């Protein structure tokens, strides 16, 4: 199990009810982590519509996670 810090934005923040949380997870990749959290928070947004950043850099969904990573899930935003 790795301890990962997660930050949510926009619709994901609303669904999660928090902008930040720290989770203990067995997820090995960013994609697995999203699936786990999407199920827990009922995100409803397919992963293909989102981007993920790990440690302040955009990353591939297949990127392996390690303890202490900071993960941000970014939904597209359109308001103006």
């Amino acid at each position, binding site marked *: 199990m790795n301890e990962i810090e997660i*930050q949510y*934005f*926009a*619709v994901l*923040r*609303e669904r999660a009810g928090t*902008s930040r949380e720290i989770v203990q997870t067995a997820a090995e990749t960013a994609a697995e982590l999203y699936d786990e959290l999407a199920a827990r928070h009922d995100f*409803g*947004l397919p992963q*293909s*519509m989102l*981007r993920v*950043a790990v440690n*302040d*850099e*955009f990353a591939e969904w297949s990127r392996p996670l390690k303890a202490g990573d900071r993960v*941000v899930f*970014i*939904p*597209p*935003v*359109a*308001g*103006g």
Partner: protein
Amino acid sequence: MSPFAFASASLEPDRYRESLADPSAGGYASFEGWVRDHNEGRTVQRLEYEAFEALAIREGERIVAEAVARFGVARAACVHRVGSLGIGELAVWVGVSAAHRGEAFAACRYIIDEVKHRVPIWKKEHYADGDSGWVNCERCATAPHHGHAHADGSAALPAHDYSRQIALPEVGAAGQARLAAASVLVVGAGGLGVPVLQYLAAAGIGRLGIVDGDVVEASNLHRQPLYGPADLGRPKAAVAAGRLRALNPDVRIEVHEVHAAPDNIDALVEHHDLVVECTDNFRAKFLVNDAVLRARKPAVFASVHQYEGQLQVYRPLPHWPCLRCLWPEAPRDGLVGNCAEAGVLGPVPATLGAMQAMQALKRLLGLDAGDTPSLVMVDLLGLETRRLAARRNPDCDHDNPGHDRPTSEQPLELEFETLADAFESGLELVDIRESWERAHDPPGLQIPTHLPLGELVHGRAEFPADGRYLIICAHGVRSLSLTEHLRSRGQAEVYSLRGGLAALRG
């Protein structure tokens, strides 16, 4: 000689004097301004003059023309130094030739007084104690004074004062001249566009294009304070243009009362140096993205959602990511909400818009050499910003952007004057607004078939696969997005009502 000029080397009054010779002149008067060794109790060692030359020459020529017209003199001219000057050097020369001495003296006095008041020239004094400081030109120090008798008879406003930005070492007179020579296209004059337009106009951008096909609505006012209740129902682009012209008459404002569309975006982008994208929908954002890629122009994108915003700068450099590099699957409108659906506080778009204006100025001034591509996320509730480094997506074809755009020959949008005309078209009308948006519809203007977009995008409802449909929403943005989506799935007989219900008469 030209009536007003700048010189970077020593002035030559004898040469200037000869050029004023005129058979009708019975006399000549001149004034010379010299650099003195003290000012306000401090010992001055030398001076530097800096001018915003394009504007200064225009205003200087106007002053000389006024003097000739007002005093009926034969000839007049003025030359001002720029650059570094020592004590005793000649800083400014004014000369007038006239039939009689009275007019010559009066015109000479008028020219030097008006030049000191109105022409944007800045003076930096270097003091004996090693210190130095910019001294406001008199124009900046005095209260605005109206009522010069201009040659064209119009009452003059004082010239716009850029001294506080010219004072920045990275800007200077050269930077101001770059801004005056620049043109910026602002797509969308809403929550983001209003501050972008205000700050770019105030900064003295030479030419600003405003693209917006909407009218001012009551629900806009809380976050778009360029508009007031008296503007309701008037086209945003035109109202904004009027306000901005009053804010800074130096700026040329061009009004485009249209929504950005595939058939107009390339022509709009082509005539500007930089694009600031301020719309509230993905469709327009990707349209602008593709157009700036084709035109190889820089662009500044931003979006807001409730208390948050995202900012992305695009530069036409080989390694630089575009909007599609970050979002390869163009998001569908309605899925994540815009301001109308999700709500927003005014300072959120205002903050992001001000950031966009700043990034635009940075690009135009060449202050972005050290920037690396990123998406900046701003959370104004948590008061946090986060900068995420972004890379070019190798699968994103910048030479052929927007390849997934529908290429159907059928028009996506249809135009109708009234709802009755639309009903008679033979198409089935489908209202995709949310239920609360329908609550205030007048009884005669109701559309029986209702499929809220929120239900469709979350998979709780399906759009019927067979039949011919006219899709309708409030402004034609969400309906167009859904129409494009359905067409891309092979459904040929779906159309969007252009401009939505807001565009119908009666």
